[in-house]
């Protein structure tokens, strides 16, 4: 999806004005690349033995709002500001654990998710979408950086270094909170 987003954004394209519909689709595709990566890790974190068919079904338990809420808690947990009362439990969980704080990679993913979700909303529904190619490329590159960070945190679970295992633990806390906030299985 990221390669598609890059192509639509006109990365390394030759001269010529970009098409607005291509830029909008690039932003939207970049967002979905990160969203689906988080979902996949979230499913496997919750159901480690899930088959591909189960991964596909369980992924639908996650919602855009649920992941956003969890990302918002990560940002709040990394902040020196006191969290809102209704966020305290989740923020404490993210600040706790072996890392005793939010790893930089997790904060990067959370910030990128919120930025890209907002951008995707503008891309898909608003006339206020910024039609500048540089801005769209930054969306795509931000998604790429964040996806790499998710993989780094996921693979850290196989490390022999305690510091890397702690980062993986923090990522799993974020993923579990995203699933909880999404509401779990729903009737279809």
């Amino acid at each position, binding site marked *: 999806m990221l390669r598609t987003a890059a192509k639509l954004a006109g990365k390394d394209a030759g001269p010529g004005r970009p098409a607005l519909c291509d830029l909008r689709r690039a932003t939207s595709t970049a967002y979905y690349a990160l969203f689906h990566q988080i979902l996949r890790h979230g499913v496997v974190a919750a159901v480690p033995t899930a088959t591909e068919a189960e991964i596909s079904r369980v992924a639908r338990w996650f919602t855009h709002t649920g992941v956003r809420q969890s990302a918002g808690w990560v940002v709040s947990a990394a902040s020196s500001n006191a969290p809102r009362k209704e966020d305290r439990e989740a923020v404490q969980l993210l600040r706790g654990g072996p890392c005793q704080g939010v790893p930089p990679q997790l904060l990067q993913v959370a910030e990128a998710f919120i930025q890209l979700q907002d951008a995707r909303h503008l891309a898909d529904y608003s006339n206020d979408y910024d039609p500048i190619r540089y801005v769209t490329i*930054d969306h795509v590159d931000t998604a790429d950086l964040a996806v790499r960070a998710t993989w780094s945190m996921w693979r850290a679970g196989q490390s022999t270094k305690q510091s890397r295992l702690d980062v993986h633990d923090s990522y799993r806390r974020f993923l579990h909170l995203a699933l909880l906030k999404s509401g779990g299985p729903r009737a279809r």
Partner: protein
Amino acid sequence: MAEQTPVRHETDFRDDVVAAVKELGSGDTRVLDAVVERIEDWTGDEAWRLLLVLPRPRGSAWDVEATAELKRRAREILDTRAETYGVRLDGVSAATLTTRDAPESEVAPPDEPEEGESPDSPETDE
């Protein structure tokens, strides 16, 4: 006793944030200007948005690690000042980028309606 927060004028908050973020960045990621907006985000929460105006990139794009760091530091300034001025909002704040220096070749024109379509024609269900 209820927690007391300082109440200051929102204009002071915006001016303070803009002045602070204009110290950030360097090269083609230095902040030339900034706009602080109170928006309703797509989840329905009120949130602060900080639009950072940068020079156009030297190449085809800004360095993404530099822009990520810039957006993070800018958002932290926004959140800290919001706390100080007593203007925290429920939604998550975020920083975004733009430039006012983009040449025409980098700006997408509005989409033309496809042949047979008009802006007022209803979409058909298929």
